[in-house]
C-alpha cells in the first residue's frame, strides 16, 4: 500500500537511494537483447570448437560480412517493427537500388554518383509511398508492402531483361568512378590480421546510430509509443504520421545502402538480389528481442540477431553440413525467440 508522504520533502531526500536500488545485473537482464547475446555467444563457441576454419581470419571475415549485410537491414526493420509495422519490400529494395545504379551507369552512361543519388531518392520515394498508404488508409503494412514487394520484384526482373537482355547487370568495373565508390562501399580494411569488409563498419555505425536514436532522442520515444499504443501517442501530441512515414523511408534507405554495398563488392547485380530475404530481416529483429506486435525491441538486438544468422549461415558451410539445416535452425530460433518475447510482454504489458 502506498503511504501518504509529505509533499516534496520526503520524495526528494530518498530520490537517489531509490534510483540505485535496481541492481545493474537486473537492469542488464531486463534488456530486450539479452537472449540474443547469450545465443550468439553459444553459437560462436560451438562453431569455433566444432570447425577449424570458423575462427581463421578468412572465416571471421566471411561470417562478419554476411552478418553485416543482414544486420544493416535488420536494424532498420527492427526500428520499423518497434514502431508497429512491417516492410516486406525491404529485401527486393536492395536489388532494385543496385539494379537502378547498374542500369543508369552501364546502359545509359549516367554519372555514377548522380545515379547513386537518384537511386536513393527513388528508394526514399517508395518508402514514403509505403508509409503514406499505411498512414492514410490504415491498411496493414504487411499487405501494403507485400504489394510493393511484388511490384519491385517484377520490375527488377522484367526491367533488367528489357534493358540488358539478361537477368543481371555486369560491367560495373568499367564505369568511371567505380574505384572511388568501391573505396566507400566495397573496400577491405585489415583489423588485427582479419581483412574486414567495409560493410562491417557500416553495420556497426548504423547499429550505433539507431540505438542512440531509439534510446536517446525524442524520435526514439515516439517510435516506441507509436508501436506500443498508437492512440496514446496521438493523444499526447506525438507527430504520429511523420514518424511512421519516416520509418518506412528508413528501411528503404537501408535497402539502398545494402544495394550499394553488394554492388561495389562484386560489381554485378543479379535481378533476383534480395528476394526472399525480407523475412530473414524480420527473424533477425525478433531473435534480437523485437515484439511482432510493436512497441518493444532494440537495434543492438537486431544486430545480434543478424550476427547469429551470419554465423550459422557460414558455420554450416564450414562444418560441411547440408545447407538445408539452416532453414530448420532458423525456424527453431524464431519460435524460441517469440516464446521468450511473449513472456516479456506478459510481464510488462498486461496487468489490470
Amino acid at each position, binding site marked *: *500500500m*502506498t*503511504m*501518504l*508522504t509529505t*509533499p*516534496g520533502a*520526503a*520524495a*526528494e531526500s*530518498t*530520490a537517489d537511494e*531509490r*534510483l540505485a*536500488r*535496481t541492481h545493474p545485473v537486473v*537492469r542488464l537482464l531486463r534488456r530486450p537483447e539479452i537472449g540474443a547475446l547469450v545465443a550468439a555467444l553459444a553459437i560462436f563457441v560451438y562453431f569455433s570448437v566444432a570447425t577449424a576454419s570458423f575462427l581463421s581470419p578468412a572465416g571471421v571475415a566471411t561470417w562478419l560480412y554476411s552478418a553485416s549485410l543482414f544486420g544493416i537491414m535488420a536494424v532498420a526493420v527492427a526500428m520499423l517493427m518497434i514502431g508497429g509495422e512491417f516492410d516486406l519490400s525491404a529485401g527486393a529494395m536492395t536489388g532494385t537500388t543496385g539494379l537502378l545504379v547498374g542500369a543508369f551507369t552501364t546502359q545509359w552512361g549516367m554519372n555514377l554518383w548522380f545515379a547513386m543519388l537518384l537511386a536513393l531518392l527513388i528508394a526514399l520515394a517508395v518508402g514514403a509511398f509505403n508509409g503514406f498508404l499505411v498512414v492514410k488508409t490504415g491498411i496493414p503494412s504487411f499487405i501494403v508492402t507485400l504489394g510493393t514487394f511484388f511490384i519491385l520484384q517484377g520490375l527488377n526482373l522484367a526491367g533488367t531483361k528489357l534493358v540488358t537482355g539478361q537477368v543481371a547487370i555486369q560491367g560495373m568495373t568499367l564505369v568511371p568512378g567505380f574505384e572511388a565508390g568501391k573505396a566507400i562501399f566495397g573496400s577491405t580494411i585489415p583489423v588485427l590480421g582479419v581483412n574486414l569488409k567495409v560493410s562491417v563498419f557500416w553495420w556497426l555505425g548504423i547499429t550505433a546510430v539507431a540505438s*542512440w536514436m531509439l534510446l*536517446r*532522442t*525524442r524520435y*526514439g*520515444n*515516439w517510435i*516506441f*509509443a507509436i508501436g*506500443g*499504443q498508437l*492512440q*496514446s*501517442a496521438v*493523444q*499526447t*501530441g*506525438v507527430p504520429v504520421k511523420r514518424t511512421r512515414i519516416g520509418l518506412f523511408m528508413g528501411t528503404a534507405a537501408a535497402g539502398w545502402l545494402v544495394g550499394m554495398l553488394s554492388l561495389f563488392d562484386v560489381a554485378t547485380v543479379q535481378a533476383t538480389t534480395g528476394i526472399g530475404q525480407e523475412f530473414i530481416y524480420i527473424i533477425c529483429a525478433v531473435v534480437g528481442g523485437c*515484439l511482432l506486435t510493436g*512497441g*518493444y525491441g532494440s537495434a543492438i538486438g537486431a544486430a545480434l540477431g543478424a550476427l547469429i544468422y551470419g554465423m550459422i549461415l557460414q558455420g554450416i558451410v564450414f562444418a560441411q553440413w547440408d545447407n538445408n539445416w539452416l532453414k530448420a535452425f532458423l525456424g527453431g530460433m524464431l519460435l524460441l525467440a517469440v516464446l521468450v518475447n511473449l513472456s516479456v*510482454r506478459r*510481464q*510488462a*504489458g*498486461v*496487468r*489490470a
Partner: protein
Amino acid sequence: MSAAGATQAAPILEVRGIGKVYGSVIALSDISTSVGAGEVLCVLGDNGAGKSTLLKVLAGVHPHSSGEVLLDGAAVRFTGPRLALDAGIATVYQDLAIVPLMPVWRNFFLGAELSAGIGPFSRLKVAEMRAITLAQLGRMGIDLRDVDQPIGTLSGGERQSVAIARAIYFGARVVILDEPTSALGVKQAGVVLRYVAQARDHGLGVVFVTHNPHHAYPVGDRFLVLNRGASLGEFDRKGITIDELTRLMAGGAELDSLARELERS
C-alpha cells in the same frame, strides 16, 4: 502551498447556463457551475445523465451550443482540446494515454520530451527527466521504486495517478478526471482518491466526473448532480449527506420502489 480547504475560491473555470445540442438531441441544458483553485467539484450522474457531454465541453472536444464558458472571469470558447490544454485545463481520460511497455519516466514526458542540442543532434535529458518524474510522483505521494519499470507493471490506481501527476506537471490549473475510479477495486480507488486530494492540496481545481457517490463524497467540496442532461442541483458538502446524494442520483422515489420490489422477490 497551503492546503486550505478553500470553499469559496475565485473560480478558474466557470460555466453559466450552458447547453449542448447534437442535431435534434438536447444532451445538456442550462448547466451552471464552477471550479476554483484547491477545490474539488464532483459531477455525478447515472449513465446518459450528460456527464460526458459536460466533460467534452470543458475539455474543448465539443464546443457548447448555448450559455457561456468563463476562464478567470473572461468568456472563452474552446474549439479544440489543444486550446483547453493551453489554457491550463487538462483532461485525464479513462484510457489515460499511456504506453504500457514504456518506462514510467518516458510515459511521463511522452510528446513533451526534454532535450538538449540542435535539430537532429538533440538528445534526451534522461537523468533530468528521471529525476523530475520521481520528484513529481513523490509530490503526489506515489512511492515508486524505479521510474524505469514499464508503466504497465503499475497497478491501475498508480497508473491513474501518474496520468494526473503528468497533467499537473505540464501546467494544468484545472484537471478533469473522467471516471478515474470506475474500473478500480475498492483499495485502488482509495489510492486514486488520495491523489485527487493531493492535487487539490497543491492548489489545483479538480473536476471529478463519476457515477459513484461513495467515491465522490469523501473528496468532493461541491456536487453537481445531473440527470437526463439537466441539473438536479449543486450542493455543498455541508448541505447534503451521502445518503441524500445517492438517493438523488438514483432518482429518489425510483430507488425506493426498486428496493421494495427486490425485497419481495
